[in-house]
């Protein structure tokens, strides 16, 4: 399966140029319990439907972007560069 991702810097590109990072999930703090850490690390949501995910434009601008992707249809609903959002 292949699809396009709209990179905020480079424009519409094929998914092959990107590298999947992970689901976007807040990292537990150093004070969190072992159980919380284990769940964060080893229990992924992996739900069908909309997911917020990190992707890296490996063969392009080499920037991380945040996608909202429907994992069952691979439709990308939005893509943002966190640095652009911050400024």
């Amino acid at each position, binding site marked *: 399966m*292949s699809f396009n991702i709209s990179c905020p810097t480079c424009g519409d590109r094929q998914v092959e140029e990107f590298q999947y*990072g992970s689901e976007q999930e807040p990292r537990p703090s150093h004070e*969190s319990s072992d159980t919380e850490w284990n769940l964060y690390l080893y229990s992924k949501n992996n739900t069908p439907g909309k997911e917020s995910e990190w992707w*890296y434009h490996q063969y392009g601008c080499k920037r991380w972007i945040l996608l909202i992707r429907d994992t069952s249809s691979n439709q990308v609903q939005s893509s943002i560069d966190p640095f652009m959002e911050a400024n």
Partner: protein
Amino acid sequence: MSKIMRTDRFPTGELIDRLKPIEFTFDGKKVAAYEGDTLGSALAAQNIKVLSRSFKYHRPRGLMCVSGKCPNCLVEVNGSPNIRACITTVENKMNVKSQNRWPSVKYDVFSVIDKLHWLLPVGFYYKSFYKPRFIWNLVRPIFRKAGGLGRINPKAKSILEKPHKAVFTEIAVVGAGLSGLSAALSAAEQGVEVTLIDQLEHLGGNNKDLLEEELVRKIIAKKSITIITGAPVFGFYPPNLITLDTAEEMIKLHCEKIIIATGSHEVPIIFESNDLPGVMLASGAIKLLKLYGAIPGNDAVIITESNEGYSQALELKNYGLNVVAVLDSRTEIEPQLSKPLEQAEIPVFTDVKSIQAIGTDYISSIKFYYADNWRYLDCDLACSSGRLQPALQLALQAGCSTEFNSNLNTLVPSEPPKQIFLTGGLIGISDKNDSSNHGKTVGLAAATNKPDLKFNIKDNSTNNTKFTNICSKNKRFICFCEDVTSKDLSQAIKEGFTDIQILKRYSTITMGPCQGKMCLTNFIRESSIETGSTQAELGLTTLRPPVEPITLGSLAGPGFIPIKRSPLHSKHLELGAKMVEVGGWIRPYSYIEALTEVSIVRNNVGIIDVSTLGKLDVRGSDAARLLDFIYVNKMSNLKIGKVRYGVMCLENGTILDDGTVARLSDDRFFITTTTTNIEMIESWFKWWLASDTNLDVALVNITSEHAAINIAGPNTRNILQGLTTTDISANKFPYMTVKESFIVDIPAIIMRIGFVGEIGWEIHFPSIYAEHLWDELYNRNVQAFGVEAQRILRLEKGHVIINQDTDSLTNPLEIGLDHIIGSTKSDYVGKNQIHQQYNRGIKRKLVSFTMHEKSPTPQDGSAIIHRGDPIGRVTSARRSPVNQKPFGLAILPYNLSIKGQEVFILINEDLYPAKVSLESIYDPNGTRLRA
């Protein structure tokens, strides 16, 4: 009926060269052929009818489609299994063997299964031989031997790996038949760049005629059309990529728009014993005659349900065959169809109800039900004519849906996505003028972005009569690949498998080597009749790539990973270095001899090109904070001008990478990573930066901007002091410090570190000066050493190479970095899991070992045995140039990683003792390193 063995040919045969006779062997027997022949045509010309045995019942099978689609002519050619004889060009001395038979294709012991079919009903593997359990183990080897296709020869030489090539085009036209040619030409006339592809070796398609030839001439003259022939398109991948398998390469064709004109092809009509050798597709028989002059049979019966049968009967007659009769299932025939046949004295039987082919190894007569009577006709060829199946795989992969087409009485692709266009026989256009005009319109629409297609296609719909099945003792095959009969299909439907996708999986129809090319249409039609649902309601099974059979070598070819070369590459070549690929880089393995190089570094001085090291420049007021977080070591307390070895982990506590961190100023760090990992580490750092955009850090990967040379050995200081004004004495430039300075006027970051275990400096400087500095050093009688010498040197020192001495589960505690547990840092990547690991206790540890000098050297990865059990492995091992003893690093269970512990290493199936040591075998106190 004439039974004369005919080995001569008809005067037709466009493709063969009668002046060039060649020969090959089929099952050990010599077969005469001409240059240009295919294996199939040569065998047909020699009257060899049985080419293979079928998958399940081991029934004899012969040529059927003659277009590389059906499974009937799969043979082994020069050791490669499952080659389609009918499309494989003969080469002199080819060694061809039949498959799935024993002892010979003519007398096959397993053909008894044909009589035992009641034992093997549809889906038998779901319902029998599972109780009692042991029975499966008994019958499995027999099934494995009896069923199946060719055998893979594990000793055969490796298959050809085809290089992959990426090509870009505006419009791709798949299929160079009449409609494809018209579309390509009209699109190119609008000034766009067109690529025209066909799986045949020539343009014009299977029905090449004057009309096509004229178009081909125009297309060849058109510069903006790229032609790729002999290239089956085997897959469509979104958004708009098609893959082509040519003889030399695998092409990934990226297109803006795709015009699919893959046409349609003939499929068998279903009647009793329709698999007997001698029952062919009419198009196949015509092809044998027209292209090769090979005679498929002398007395032909045409079985048809459409007008096509009448013209094909005349064509066969014109080539010189005796056409015995035309059997038509329809009741009413237009007089203009039957008249020419009357003139040619070919009898026509209409309203034929049921047909059966008779014969043992090949057809000898046809029995049919006509006017309430059974009749017989002697023949040695029966041509199934005029049932068409659109080649819709590619169109469906591209996202088209399907609709019922009454012309073809089957489903055709429809509603293409906006960048896909369909034309020709694929969507049921049969008339030549219609094909050409529709092609033109589609080409124009694709080129001008105006997909405004108003086109009326002539309705040639045939009435939906079919050959019924009055007597049903004999098998009527729907699927030739997997031997599935119409009885099997109706049985499966009776058992409740009415969904087309499930029915496919249960009956295995369309799942064999032809992947539905011969059976999809028949499968849907018969299912529709059995279930009472319309074809449109049933829909199609999913048609996945590959559309055409391809070898694994096409997929396994080299990809697009570029090879990296150091800025000193040409210097290495000048010095005659033996080069080797390491982590995507081409690096010198050795210049003279690795052991000699080792000895020179230990006793004098050597240089190695380490430009391949990953290099990151990290700056900003939060740089120290970021490094503290990413490395397991503390970096914020690193003093300016100091260097520290650092390890980083993943959040799960396993080691990601290691390298040096040099602090150049309060807010500026220079980091090295391992050669292989730099791309990944760059993305790793950037991810943490993107996760906290408030951090004031800038990060640049300067791997290719900076070259690096490591100079090491006891005489290093003498050489280096001559090239720089910086004081490099032991007091002024101690171990693990860094200076930004100049060497022969080149600005450089100079680090005193010692991967190889001798006094030495790593010099990082702009790449453009690489050769200049190399020459300056080399001309002072310094020996260049390669990666092999470096590996020996570092191994003697016990220095770890990440991913060589560690794996993806190794944590820092296992390689002896316990001190990080006491770290005062509140948080860093991996902390929680490393601490959990520490509390549980580690199970294994990386240790050094030495062996007796008479032992052979273990290979990297050799197993370590303790009390008969494999308990660990060697990660790196070499023979010591100092004392000739094999030594190295190994992963052992924690309880055995004790100094002096004896274990055994498995080398060439023998065990050799080794002793564990916990310190490096060379300069364990580091006095030489710090000198």
